[in-house]
């Protein structure tokens, strides 16, 4: 079967496709950092909880218990934006692959609700070991499942030659388990989470250290070490991930396309820099190079998708029916909302001096 026949037609968009491409990358970066933080933080918490016996409420890693539910809220919120923009420019591919694995996709919703409530149960019952461990474990398993499903979804999206499997199972239960790249990507996600979890621990502990909370300093160091270890493993996983790509992708990233290669290499270099600064417990530069790494890698991720789809789709194909008045309105509202958010966060920060739970 000629698979290109299965590719749905595309609709018009209200502004240049590259705008949505760019905004999708930037918002995805925020989303994935938050998701990594949640998963990584949970893994760190679980590991340390399993290592010690008894109900220990005063554990140094407990601050993460408070950040996790808040970060889940923000992760969901920041997941909306890339989800919107991927549907704007890649919807015809994204919806199709989603439908093929519909049962797995829809199961994300009840599972995410359970995971989210588990994060609150964990926080509320942090001193009751069994409950806390069970809640953490459930949260982790569910997040891993969701991650794997999304990886599968996004992979299937760029492999329309597989879509004819729909005709064998139309109940939305198609899932690919045989491709190596899925596991390489999954591992890349897990190690990233461990690294970001460590960095989150370090950052939160830095603020606690400034407020004079004991043991916070040790937690900063521990967090940085976890970041370094996770990032190193990440590089190894990254190599595996790179070489499980299609050859056209590998070629492009290793010199075939100048821009793509430069962005990719910049990402690797800044990852190395981040590792070095983390071993020096230099928070500011670690965070700076970490963000630069994330930026370059999120761009690389989007660039790879461009390469993977180039034989049957180009963003240039999409017709633009401009709605510049609405784009302007969006900028205005984003600005106004941003100002209000800034105001609220400032109030929240300045009120910290009065005490209150983090």
């Amino acid at each position, binding site marked *: 079967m000629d698979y290109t026949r299965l590719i749905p037609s595309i609709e018009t968009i209200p502004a240049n496709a590259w705008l949505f491409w760019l905004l999708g990358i930037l918002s995805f970066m925020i989303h994935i950092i938050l998701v990594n933080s949640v998963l990584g933080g949970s893994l760190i918490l679980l590991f340390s909880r399993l290592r010690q016996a008894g109900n220990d409420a005063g554990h140094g890693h407990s601050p993460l218990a408070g950040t996790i539910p808040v970060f889940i809220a923000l992760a969901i919120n920041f997941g909306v934006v890339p989800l919107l923009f991927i549907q704007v420019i890649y919807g015809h591919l994204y919806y199709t692959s*989603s439908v093929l694995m519909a049962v797995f996709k829809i199961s994300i919703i009840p599972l995410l609700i359970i995971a989210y409530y588990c994060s609150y149960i964990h926080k509320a019952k942090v001193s009751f070991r069994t409950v806390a461990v069970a809640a953490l474990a459930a949260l982790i398993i569910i997040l891993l499942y969701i991650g794997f499903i999304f990886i599968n979804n996004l992979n299937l999206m760029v492999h329309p030659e597989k879509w004819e499997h729909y005709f064998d199972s139309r109940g939305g239960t198609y899932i690919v388990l045989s491709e190596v790249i899925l596991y390489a990507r999954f591992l890349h996600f897990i190690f990233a989470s461990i690294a970001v979890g460590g960095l989150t621990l370090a950052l939160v502990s830095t603020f606690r250290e400034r407020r004079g909370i004991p043991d916070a300093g040790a937690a900063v160091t521990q967090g940085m070490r976890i970041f370094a270890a996770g990032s190193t493993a990440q590089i190894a996983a990254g190599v595996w991930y790179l070489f499980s790509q299609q050859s056209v992708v590998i070629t492009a990233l290793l010199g075939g396309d100048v821009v793509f290669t430069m962005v990719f290499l910049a990402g690797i270099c800044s990852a190395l820099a981040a590792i070095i600064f983390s071993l020096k417990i230099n928070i500011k530069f670690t965070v700076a190079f970490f963000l630069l790494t994330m930026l370059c890698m999120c761009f690389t991720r989007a660039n790879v998708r461009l390469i993977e789809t180039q034989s049957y789709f180009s963003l240039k194909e999409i017709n633009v029916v401009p709605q510049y008045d609405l784009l302007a309105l*969006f900028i205005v509202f*984003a600005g106004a909302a941003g100002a209000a958010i800034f105001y609220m966060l400032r109030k929240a920060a300045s009120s910290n001096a009065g005490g209150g739970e983090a």
Partner: protein
Amino acid sequence: MNYPVWQVNWLGGGTIIAVISILHVYIAHLAVGGGMYIWLTDCKAVRENSVDLRNFIKKHVWFFLLVTMVFGAVTGVGIWFSISLVNPAGTSALIHYFVFAWAIEWTFFLGEIVALLVYHYRFDALKEQDRNRVAFLYFIFAWLSLFAINGILSFMLTPGKWTATMNFWHGFFNPSFFPTLFFRTFLSAMFAGIFSYVTALFGGAVPLRKNLLDYSRKWVQYSALGMLPFLVWSYFSVPAPLRETSFYLNPQTSPFIVFFFIALFVALVLPFYINASNNLRYQKSMAAVIAAAGLFIMGSFEYLREITRKPFVIRDYLYSSSIYAGDVGKILEEGFLPRARWSPLREITAENEIAAGREIFNLQCLSCHTIRGIRNDIAPRTAGFTYDGLLAQLDGQGRVLDYMPPFMGTDDEKRALALYLYREINGKEMPGEPQQPLQPGPGKALPQFKANSEYVLLAWPERGISLLSDCDRWFTLFPPDTTMKALLIKRGANPQVVTEEALLRYEIENDFQHPSRHIPFWDHAESTMKVSVKKDQGITGSYLSGSFVYDDRRGTLAAVSLPLAPYGDSGAYDPYPVFTIESGIHNSAREVLKTVSVAAVSAEPGCANCHEGGWKHEASRAGISDGTAINILRAHDRISRTGLFSDARSGNPRSCASCHEDALSGSAGDGKRMNLSASIHGFHAGYIKQKDSGACLKCHPSSTVTGTMSSRGIHETVGMTCVECHGTMDQHALALLKHESAKKTSARLAGALKKESSVPFDRIEPRKPWLQEPDCLTCHVNFDAPTNYEAFNRWNAGPSGLFKNNTDNVGVPCQACHGPAHALYPVDGPSASSGNAQPVQYTGSPYPLGADRKCGVCHKKGMNDSLHHDNMLRMFRNR
């Protein structure tokens, strides 16, 4: 067709969306109203300097966060996931046309969650004024989210000018936007009050409980009352034809209207009971009830909104089946399967016909129907139809009952879908070929006519064929009702009609003298016809043997409403039973005159052609079976919101004419509904699309098995069909509907048919059934050879102009010489020998009496004047 279909056969994709959506929307409205509540209550706490109230808010907000932020937010994403999976085309349209609206809404969502997190986590730390401001910002962001989403949601139902302009602002600020915005705002406040009851009662000891309960009551009741005018405004913002379709025609809406108002009533009234009680357990359970009522209010409203939008996802733009309204024309021309990207079949062959039907079903029907699933199950909805019935249903789908879309495809694709529904969904086998046609019996022996006889005795049925519906246990459409007329002429130079001394008697053939043994009419006549008649007695009191009586209205001797049925005691089915008419004349010669006349009667209205149930008597293919009758009543109950099936089951069947005025039986109906002919033709014309007499013969008998022919006279012989005189089915229906234009349903039925008629609707002459018919002289100008062959649209002015009532220039009924309409001499076909009995008896040929210049039959000699009517003195044209 652009996207693959996620086949959720049992649960239905729509069910998944419904469950997630209703939960989300309930909580989302709570989030908006709750924001208003938290802000105003916090201000109140500050104003009253109340620590207790402040503590209550703090606790309230914690539960509020757990509900709205977790369950609310994730189910919101859940809606997005579920609609993307069940209707990607619709989701894609909403995403692409409203990208920036969604992007703007996201900024509100972000502001909302930051506000709530700051408010909750810094509740104790923030200065009071700052805390109030954060609460206010939360509320504003939440309400703005509602504003943005409501724009898109209301657009789906009433896109307004957007359909023509595709302009964002026309779509966003559409006709139902503002009414529903305010409705939802008040609803949100009401839900905030409900949640306030929950936290005040379930949140442990609360010092201000009594005050809080009173406070909660006000939130619930005042908001509910404030909501009502906007509910009414929202209702009227939906266009009137759409309101009619959804709230009157769609049988699915009534339960939800009931749920909505009962739940609203509960929510309004329960606060009084909660607040008056001192029993905490009782109060808690009532709080749970009121929370459930809130869910029912929300769910019913959203369900009604969704149903009203059917069959579209975006009205007038995109159907629920993901087919664009703009593509329908091309699909009808080029076919559906060739254009469906995700169909593995592109063309239909004999081998893959059912598989093709399955693909069409998946792509066009599965979006709303389940297969043996929990709602809108296609199996029982199609079980009541035969294969032909399914084809008819697909032909008429969505024209009148426009909560359904039209079928989109070629005739081959329609057949494939019908075959799939019939064979695979309903597991039926196609019916076998009809058996050998019944052979017409030998003709009846004709009485002799002596050349010197003083009289000519003529008798004929008033109607060429009488239909009877022998399913009286369920309903009576046509009671057994055959009227015979007779004329005794004294022969001579100046023939005279004899009336008083005629002493004419009639008797049906032996085999047909006991119709009560074969049809159930008499078991139910009291219920259906509201008459008390003995067995074998007609509705006006006559039996199948008796005397003719002079009928003033008819102006002849008549035997009215004889209860003739085509079932013989010997087991024969014969639609042409014969009356023998005799006269015992007291004259010098003491002549006993005799003639015979066939009174065609049929129990074959073709309901079973479409309404599954087979024939009552399979071998003769006659009679309306119980199954068919039940399927008819069920369809009628569903479409017209009647209770006919349950009435019949409890022993009170009705006649159609009891509601629908019918000139044939003389019933005035109930005054509200269209007359019977307009109703039955007006409705079925939408489903029977043939432009030839094939449409008529779906119901009016014409069977090669029984030899019953509704039309079997000279017009039939020269090649004319129903259509030349009565018009095509749609034209026939439109004339009847136009006469009933004062009645509500006439406009809707006529509207669906107007486009098809080759005669423009404003030129169609309204027609009152049975009293206005096509006129012979439209074609036979001056009683001469026809100048054209179309008699549709010119009716006689009143009953006296009808062929059956009309007479010639000297008062002889037209029917006496020519026979009844549809069986005009010479009759052809299986009933020819008895159908032409009188002309043959008196003239030796089957032509109308007096044809071939045989004036002598009455005048005893030839005549030179065309006295009876012009152009009559010549040889019969069509030999």
